[in-house]
């Protein structure tokens, strides 16, 4: 009876810890260990939990009731007063760098029940699980800054000592985040999605043999062909030609995308920035933009004697419009205050363009580039189908003409993968260039 009661209490402690910011995504095992060192305490309404400047020994997690947490003025918190309810964590001053005293005074305003966790015991425990422990400490820092509005300078948490954390490399952190992701439901939902899709394909073609899919190559046929060292239709992972096709398409898209970016971004910036330029150019732009890329094929072939340049030109064209248009929208979306502020600070027109317009439009530019790389692939394949030798579009088309149906699907799947990789590269480049935005979004998350 008594043991069962205690067991229930531990479960409840874990449940509360799970509702807190710092321990919210810790593993069950870690939570159980933390619950093991937590002590329960009750306070009547009006009772003082601790005073500012006292020794920062225990960390408090509210189980029920309500407490009022008031920083001493020197701390410089944006909001000095905070009411803490279930799942709230305070008394964390001992986790801060160079801090041994309480920063606030806490009073229960209702009958309040808390878990008390000894700071040093907790730190020891976290040090024994360096990767997860480091993550918990990071979450503490986030909570202290965001929920308790403490200046970033003060909200620096201690570094856990221990063999691993001394040199906690970004690789191990990445790996840890990966393991967190694997523990969340997201990857499994993704797998279920794929499984349903592939399962339907398999059943429809090979088991139910639906009339609509009579000519469709089945899942197993495609996979077998793709992985075969001597493929029936001549194209698989083991054949050099397969990679030549990929390389050719990637090279064409790279040229088209590069040209579209180099020309499209400046044109878009000018369109957004100069009213006169927009009045000259935009009507022409808006007339040409909706013309489908396929409609350009004959003209492209006439214009460019070499088929190669015709194909690149077509891929370029679509991407250019996407980039230029998004860049223009980006410039137009910039808050007028930024331009005015720059004017006040003595920036001339060119400086405004360079220091305000261009960086301000960057988020839109990168959205444009993501779209641009997508449509670049789209029109490339269309162009390769009509003219050209080599390339994934060419593979798909000739396989159709020559009745090699499994190869069509291999070409399509390859396109999907390569296209995804290129657009991920664009996204990574964007994150790298817009650190400010990444940080802002990271704070806005949660």
């Amino acid at each position, binding site marked *: 009876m008594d043991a069962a009661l205690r067991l229930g209490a531990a479960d409840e402690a874990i449940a509360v810890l799970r509702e807190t910011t710092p321990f919210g995504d810790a593993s069950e095992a870690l939570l159980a260990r933390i619950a093991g060192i937590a002590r329960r305490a009750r306070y009547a309404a009006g009772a003082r939990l601790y005073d500012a400047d006292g020794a920062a020994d225990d960390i408090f997690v509210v189980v029920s009731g309500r407490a009022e947490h008031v920083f001493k003025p020197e701390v410089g918190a944006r*909001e000095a007063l905070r009411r803490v309810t279930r799942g709230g964590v305070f008394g964390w001053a001992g986790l801060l760098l160079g801090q041994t005293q309480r920063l606030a005074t806490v009073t229960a305003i209702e009958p309040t029940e808390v878990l008390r966790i000894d700071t040093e015991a907790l730190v020891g425990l976290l040090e024994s699980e360096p990767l997860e422990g480091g993550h918990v400490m990071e979450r503490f820092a986030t909570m202290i800054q965001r929920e308790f*509005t403490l200046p*970033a300078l003060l909200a620096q948490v201690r570094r856990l000592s221990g063999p691993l954390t001394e040199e906690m490399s970004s690789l191990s952190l990445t790996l840890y985040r990966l393991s967190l992701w694997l523990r969340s439901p997201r990857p499994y939902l993704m797998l279920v999605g794929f499984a349903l899709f592939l399962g339907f394909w398999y059943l429809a073609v090979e088991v139910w043999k639906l009339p609509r899919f009579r000519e469709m190559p089945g899942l197993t046929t495609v996979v077998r062909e793709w992985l075969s060292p001597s493929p029936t239709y001549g194209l698989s992972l083991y054949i050099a030609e397969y990679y030549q096709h990929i390389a050719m398409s990637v090279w064409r898209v790279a040229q088209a995308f590069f040209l579209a970016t180099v020309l499209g971004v400046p044109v878009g910036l000018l369109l957004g920035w100069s009213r006169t330029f927009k009045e000259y150019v935009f009507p022409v732009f808006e007339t040409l933009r909706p013309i489908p890329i396929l409609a350009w094929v004959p003209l492209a072939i006439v214009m460019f004697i070499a088929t190669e340049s015709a194909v690149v030109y077509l891929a370029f064209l679509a991407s250019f419009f996407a980039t230029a248009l998004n860049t223009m929208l980006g410039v137009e979306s910039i*808050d007028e205050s930024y331009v*005015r502020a720059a*004017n*006040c*600070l003595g920036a001339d027109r060119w400086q405004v363009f360079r220091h305000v317009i261009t*960086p301000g439009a960057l988020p839109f530019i990168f959205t444009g580039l993501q779209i641009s790389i997508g449509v670049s692939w789209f029109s490339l394949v269309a162009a390769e189908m009509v003219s050209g030798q080599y390339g994934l579009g060419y593979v798909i088309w000739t396989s159709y003409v020559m009745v090699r149906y499994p190869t069509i699907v291999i070409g399509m799947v390859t396109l999907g993968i390569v296209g995804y990789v290129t657009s991920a590269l664009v996204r990574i480049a964007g994150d790298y260039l817009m650190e*400010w935005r990444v940080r802002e979004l990271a704070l806005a998350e949660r």
Partner: protein
Amino acid sequence: MTRGHIVIDDVVKVYDPQGAAVMAVDHCSLEIEPGEICMIVGPSGCGKTTLLNAIAGFHEITSGRIVMDGEVLCSPEKPRSTPGPDRIVVFQNGALFPWKTNLDNVIFGPVMQGKLARKEALDKGRAMLADAGLSGVEHNYPGEVSSGMRRRVEIVRALMNDPKALLLDEPYRALDSLTKSVMHEALLEIYYKNKVTIFFITHDLEEAIFLGHRVAIMTTRPCKPKKILNVDIPHPRDYSALTSKRFRELIEETNDAVHEEAWKAFQAGEKEGR
């Protein structure tokens, strides 16, 4: 001291969107003494920001003139003044560039004007941020610090240019009252060090009386001074002024005038946030 003497002389601003002329500012005259904190109080949408925009050079005026330290900023011949680092605006929603770190924001003015080399500007910027108690956020982006801190960084960015006047357009409007009170004291502290003319727009009467040497209560659309109040509470002030008897008296003296304009604005269908 003769810097930052602003004379607003019979200024009229008529908006004429589709032939339906709307008078935003009506023959408004107001003189702001050098080094004075002049508070402009009126309900939202009363036209007070139009006045600020005319001084800053964001809008043209229809008639009248604005003169600063003998230099005509705008007049019928030149209806729009040129924005410049002698009059710097601190915007309602803040206009620190989110893509520059706080320190890079602060040095923007002198570097753009070519007044300081980047290195010297960095030194000065660090010193001024430290002076305002903001050293810790030098390398953060504005999006990473609290809104109160952003406002302080923005004021430091303005002061880096040694302006004659600061034009503040309801800068603390979006802040919670606790942060606001801290910001008021921080602003006064900066003011006591720099003694720059401050033209401060607000709809908050308590804020106006707490900060200002004079408070101009404006009529609502068209906008012109209805009543000018001399705040005879001595500077330097701190938060104890808020509870002083004189402060309460001054509020009582002006509350009716402000309330009446707010009513008019309300009846005219003007909504908060315009």
